């Protein structure tokens, strides 16, 4: 290996600055050994949109020529390390740009590494991560999805923990000393962060993934039209009008056949059809027209269209009728209403479990109440044994915590 190519798969806005700190950190660490490097984002992504999967890249090489060799393309075709900083992205990457669904390990080279932050076990993650036609390694750092975003930067040490873990994965390019030095020199560095990087270096857990392991589903894809197949005048035909759900009752709209939102969301609504008062508010308020009207007048959220914004939970007048739950708690996109219709008691149990399992299900991204993320950090984050929410540099200082 004379070049190291890394991608960081992250969520728009929430993790935009995190991704860029990581890719910059890789290049600046490799520079300690005289290597050349570049850090860049996939420009066609839309990292300014909430939760949209996006990518940044870091390439380091022994010589400038080798670097150019790898730079002369829009997005690397193969990467040595895929870094995923939100484990809901284990379901795949569906960018704003309508590329279809790209498995999280798609660009990872054979025997390369998929490095993730997650509180889940490899087995649980492999229910979502697509099968690959070559073996690779899955490395985990125990952590929640970081909220180190565009507007607010939560200093949860995720960037340095990733860099520490990379020193273990690619020691030829990034030694722990070089990483520590680069962290210290950066405007956001500190001794505490160096300590976090070293902890991650020790605590990273890696497991070989065989070709037989993973989610066997064929990822959604579509072919882009030729110029002469597209309607002229920058014109897009509207989504056609929908149909009744069944027996002339209810209403299911047609949906965009190309752009699905299976991986756009970090949370999804679960609905208690027994307590629903059929007020229509979720149906009216949902910005993505996700709700299908069921024959009985309740509303089922179609998972192909839901971006996970949480508006339905906010507007529903009945307590605990709509609850947003971490996307990671689900392994499929099946209809909740059908599940409920089939077996109401079983559905109630299922629903109760999803809502009660706070450990997995609580996600912040900040929308429920101010200070939620800080509370989570204090309560749950495995920071390698170091208390990180007090006395750290930056805007997350103690006095700002609500």
């Amino acid at each position: 290996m004379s070049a190291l190519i890394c991608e960081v798969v992250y969520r728009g806005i929430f993790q935009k600055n995190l991704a860029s700190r990581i890719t910059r950190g890789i290049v600046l660490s490799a520079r300690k050994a005289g290597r050349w490097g570049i850090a860049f984002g996939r420009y066609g992504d839309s990292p300014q949109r909430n939760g949209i999967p996006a990518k940044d890249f870091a390439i380091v090489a022994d010589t400038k020529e080798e670097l150019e060799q790898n730079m002369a393309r829009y997005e690397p075709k193969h990467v040595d390390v895929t870094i995923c900083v939100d484990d809901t992205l284990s379901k795949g990457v569906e960018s704003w740009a309508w590329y279809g669904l790209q498995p999280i390990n798609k660009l990872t080279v054979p025997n390369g590494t998929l490095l993730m932050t997650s509180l889940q076990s490899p087995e649980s993650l492999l229910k979502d991560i697509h099968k690959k036609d070559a073996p690779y390694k899955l490395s985990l750092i125990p952590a929640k999805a970081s909220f180190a975003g565009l507007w607010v930067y939560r200093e949860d040490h995720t960037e340095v923990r990733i860099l520490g873990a990379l020193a273990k994965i690619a020691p030829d390019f990034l030694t722990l000393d070089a990483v520590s030095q680069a962290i210290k020199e950066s405007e956001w560095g500190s001794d505490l962060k160096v300590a976090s990087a070293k902890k991650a270096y020790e605590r990273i857990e890696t497991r070989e993934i065989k070709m037989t392991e993973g989610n066997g589903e064929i990822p959604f894809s579509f072919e882009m039209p030729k110029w002469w197949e597209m309607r002229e005048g920058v014109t897009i035909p509207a989504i056609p009008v929908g149909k009744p759900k069944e027996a002339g009752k209810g209403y299911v709209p047609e949906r965009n056949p190309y752009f699905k939102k299976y991986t756009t969301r970090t949370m999804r609504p679960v609905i208690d059809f027994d307590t629903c008062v059929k007020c229509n508010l979720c149906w009216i308020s949902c910005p993505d027209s996700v709700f299908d009207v069921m024959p009985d007048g309740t509303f089922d959220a179609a998972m192909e269209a839901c971006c996970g914004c949480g508006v339905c939970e906010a507007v529903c007048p009945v307590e605990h009728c709509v609850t947003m739950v971490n996307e990671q708690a689900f392994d499929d996109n099946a209809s909740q209403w059908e599940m409920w219709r089939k077996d109401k008691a079983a559905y109630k149990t299922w629903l109760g479990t999803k809502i009660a399992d706070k450990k997995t299900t609580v996600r912040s991204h900040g929308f429920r109440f101010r200070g939620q993320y800080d509370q989570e950090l204090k309560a749950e984050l495995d920071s390698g044994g170091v208390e990180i929410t007090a006395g750290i540099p930056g805007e997350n200082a103690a006095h700002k915590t609500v």
Partner: protein
Amino acid sequence: MAVVETKAAQAASEDKELLISGSEAVAEALTLADLDVVTAYPIRPYDTVMQAIAKKISGGQLTAEYIVAEGEHSQFEIVKHASTVGARVFCGSSGVGWAYAMECLVVTPPLRVPMICLVGNRALDDPGAFGVEHNDALFVRDLGWMLCWIDTSQEAFDTTLIAYRVAEDRRVFLPCAISADGAFLTHSQAITMVASKEKVDRFLPRYNRGDLLLHPDNPITVAPQANEDWVIEIRRQNDEAMKRAYTVIEEAYADFRKVFGRGPENPWFEEYMTEDADVILIGMGTISLPMKVGIRNMRAQGKKVGLVRLRWFRPFPTEKIVAALSKAKAIGVVDRNYSFGSPFASGVVANEIRAALYNSDKRPPLLSFISGLGGREVTLEDVYKAADLCYSAATSGKSDARTHWLGVRE
């Protein structure tokens, strides 16, 4: 599709002869074309056409929405939107007014809006000046606008009808700016044949926006955001539309001749005494007048000079112009515009013609002239000087790398 029908059309079958300016001739054509929506914002010399249309409406000859906008930006936006719902639209401006509308001018071709405009050519500020220069209309030369230059009131009338016919053809659906030299054409009145409504109806079908029509029965989204996966395909579509315009323009002129019994064989440019010419001068717009007079005088002295007056600048008649020019011993392009810092510091037309000739086996020496800026008169002396310089180049067989400014005090 006409949104509103014109109530009091002129007697349907009669042609009539009127003494009118180029701008008034455009208004006559718009009336017969049963224009639906027109927007206005005053700036000289374009304002003459907006006044002429207002008179048509107030006189009851034309029923159309006449919207006075608060500036050129809105002026062009309004007609752009009106066109997407199926209205036949007209708009126009001059000089920096046209520049102020630039953001709308840019989006009109990709949205495939067949907007027809009159650009009353005017010098760009500064200095604030009313006189003609072609740089204003040329702003949009690379953007998918069809661009033509007219020379007489008659051509103003005819070209307006032809422009609608071409722009509203489903194969094209591109905007077209008709350029008229400020003062010389917009403000001078000449005898003009105004055709009957019956003939115009035979020539010009109703505007049918088809599957691009913005209407509740045809639900579409127009102008979404797109990334690099889509933009080049959209540009390629525009490229194809502009290429198709060649055929559609030829068809329109042929039909025009059939219906109206006049009009040029060659839509693209007028050739004056070029048959046996040693030297051919090239220009656009009313500059042809001193050139033709000058040529006649020079011919009397045995100098075989001819003129090519370019009508259509976009699409550019590359092959035809090469064929017409490559037979001369030398050619001189007289630009009423400038392109500072361009190759050979030439005007825009000179460089286009240089580029067109590049692949030709026979490339006569080409001389480039800048003349008549800001409405300065192009004198016979200027024409003689240009022709003489071309003659020297014909003798030496060499192009002159210098661009000559004619009529500048030095």
